[in-house]
């Protein structure tokens, strides 16, 4: 093998310019895919993190049927104390869960005594909510980062539009599930940066205040947001929790709960999917580049060396060894191109990070690009390039190995 490799290398060096051009083409392709994957991956991760860590959590549990009517924030589909106790018992037993946070979500009227408008509110346990959506405190543009009974965090646009300032007293008026109207005064404790995505322009109050406004006799929870210790295990955990909660049935023998990951709750999942599809097509283009360029070079190499192939065959070189010789040439080109591409790609990604390029996401501005790539992705990409290089070399190599020595020796 070592000697075959030596001959393959020397044959590649024999046509330096052609080898350089082909290897460069593969290198550029690998760099392009790596940089594209890392940049779009950075954007995708930021987008997912903004959705999961600011508002949604990794997954949510609702009463069956709630999500179908989620735009109405239906209070009659909240989870009652009994169901919550069963749910909490299950959740507390799951080691994969880092934290979970019950929420009461409702629509209300918001009044500054001068003007009135509508608002969507989340009643939360502040510490538990911060544990599930850790970016929430970071969204406080002004005011205090703790939320106590009687406090309200207002979304920035609403606060601006209603000219509500920190420390102002405002009134929240809401109708409960029986149709009874109730109001409560709150003090503006903080103004929240709006974020792009579902719930990104909601206000927050303490969950006990929410229960009071809605005149709940016992705590009735709209949703439970869950944060996992390992986001990568989201799908497997969803399956596990699904199976566990499917056993929890109501008096009619139907499931009480429904579980949704952030993917089902956020429209940005489709953008994340689109990024994945684009990355896939980039990889397909790279495969095409490698396939065509290496096959082209190897076909030319075989054509130019027909007499040499004839000589080798006449001397008695086994056909398999001639095949290996040409496959190794293609393989070397692929390996060389992939390694150079990996190195160049890593350097470009490093430079991109050094430049601290900023970009906007919806109304949010100034996100710094953190281009990064999983080493496993580099390995997979390199392996794909190498395998395609071998496949591209096979046909010309097979042709060389099947060549009749007598015809090859006559070739001019």
């Amino acid at each position, binding site marked *: 093998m070592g*000697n075959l490799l030596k001959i393959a290398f*020397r044959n590649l060096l024999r046509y330096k310019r052609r080898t350089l051009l082909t290897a460069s083409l593969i290198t550029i392709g690998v760099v392009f895919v790596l940089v594209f994957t890392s940049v779009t991956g950075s954007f995708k991760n930021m987008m997912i993190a903004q959705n999961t860590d600011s508002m949604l959590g990794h997954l949510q549990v609702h009463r069956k049927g709630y999500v179908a009517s989620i735009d109405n924030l239906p209070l009659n589909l909240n989870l009652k104390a009994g169901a919550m106790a069963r749910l909490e018992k299950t959740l507390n037993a799951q080691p994969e869960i880092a934290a979970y946070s019950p929420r009461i979500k409702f629509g209300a009227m918001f009044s500054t005594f001068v003007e009135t408008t509508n608002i969507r509110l989340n009643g939360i346990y502040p510490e538990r909510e911060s544990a599930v959506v850790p970016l929430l405190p970071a969204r406080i543009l002004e005011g205090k980062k703790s939320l106590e009974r009687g406090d309200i965090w207002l979304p920035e646009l609403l606060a601006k539009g209603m000219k509500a300032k920190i420390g102002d007293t405002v009134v929240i008026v809401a109708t409960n599930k029986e149709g009874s109207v109730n109001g409560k005064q709150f003090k503006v404790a903080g103004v929240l940066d709006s974020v792009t995505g579902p719930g990104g322009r909601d206000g927050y109050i303490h969950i006990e205040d929410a229960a009071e406004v809605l005149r709940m006799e016992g705590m009735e929870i709209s949703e439970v947001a869950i944060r996992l210790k390992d986001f990568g295990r989201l799908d497997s955990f969803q399956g596990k929790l699904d199976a566990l909660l499917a056993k929890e049935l109501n008096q009619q023998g139907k499931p009480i709960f429904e579980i949704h990951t952030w993917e089902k709750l956020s429209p940005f999942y489709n953008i994340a999917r689109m990024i994945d599809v684009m990355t896939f097509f980039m990889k397909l283009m790279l495969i095409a580049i490698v396939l065509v360029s290496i096959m082209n070079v190897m076909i030319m190499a075989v054509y130019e060396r027909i*007499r*040499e192939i004839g*000589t080798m065959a*006449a*001397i008695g070189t*086994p*056909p398999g060894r001639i095949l290996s010789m040409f496959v190794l040439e293609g393989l070397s080109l692929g390996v060389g191109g992939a390694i150079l591409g990996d190195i160049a790609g890593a350097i470009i990604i490093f430079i991109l990070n050094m430049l601290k390029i900023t970009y906007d996401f919806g109304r949010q501005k100034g996100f710094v690009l953190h281009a990064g790539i999983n080493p496993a992705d580099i390995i997979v990409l390199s392996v794909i390039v190498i395998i395609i290089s071998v496949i591209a070399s096979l046909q010309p190599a097979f042709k060389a190995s099947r060549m009749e020595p*007598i015809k090859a020796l006559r070739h001019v």
Partner: protein
Amino acid sequence: MELVVAENVHKVYQAGEVSITALKGVSFKIEPGAFVSFVGPSGSGKTTLLNLIGCLDKPSEGKLTVAGTDVAALTRTAGAAFRGANIGFIFQDFNLLPVLTVYENIEYPLLMVQEVPVKTRAERVLSLLGSVGMTQQKDKYPDQISGGQKQRVAVARALVTNPKLVLADEPTANLDHKTAFMVIDLMKKMRDEFNTTFIFSTHDQKIVGQAETIFNLEDGELTGTQGKGGEQHGQPA
């Protein structure tokens, strides 16, 4: 026992709808250790005959045995293995592999065909480099040496596997007269040293005289034999 036996060998090439008969019932025997030349004008069938003896091609009719093996019965892979074990080739255009040095070109059949251990390989290659007078040039590439030197390397490469038979198709055609004689002398010397049978083709009458046995070919037919070590049979001259 004869090394090469040809019995009524015919070779017909098909060029489109036209059949070209290159050999017309050739019969001869060649003994081991012979220094044989096939002589004849261009198109007489010399190269065709050498290709058949070298197991690079198969007769259309008749029987040809080399070292006791029926050439027609060899498959592609078996043919390659047979050539690697029994036959050395010297080509008119030298056909050295350009990416290998002189040393590596001679070593190639031992390495790629016979997979001989490294120590034996080195001994054999260095010995042959000495025999053909190319030790000083062992690290040079083919494009750094003269035509005569290339053919000496080709002779060494043909002999490195200790073949029973060396075939040389017009080995002196691309050499000047003086170098051509040197190469033929070298081949003869190698035959004497290793007792290898040499069969070469030529149309150069001055070179022909160097052969111990001469088979004359004309229009695909054997028209006569001179010298010892070979025998024409079964076919009138």
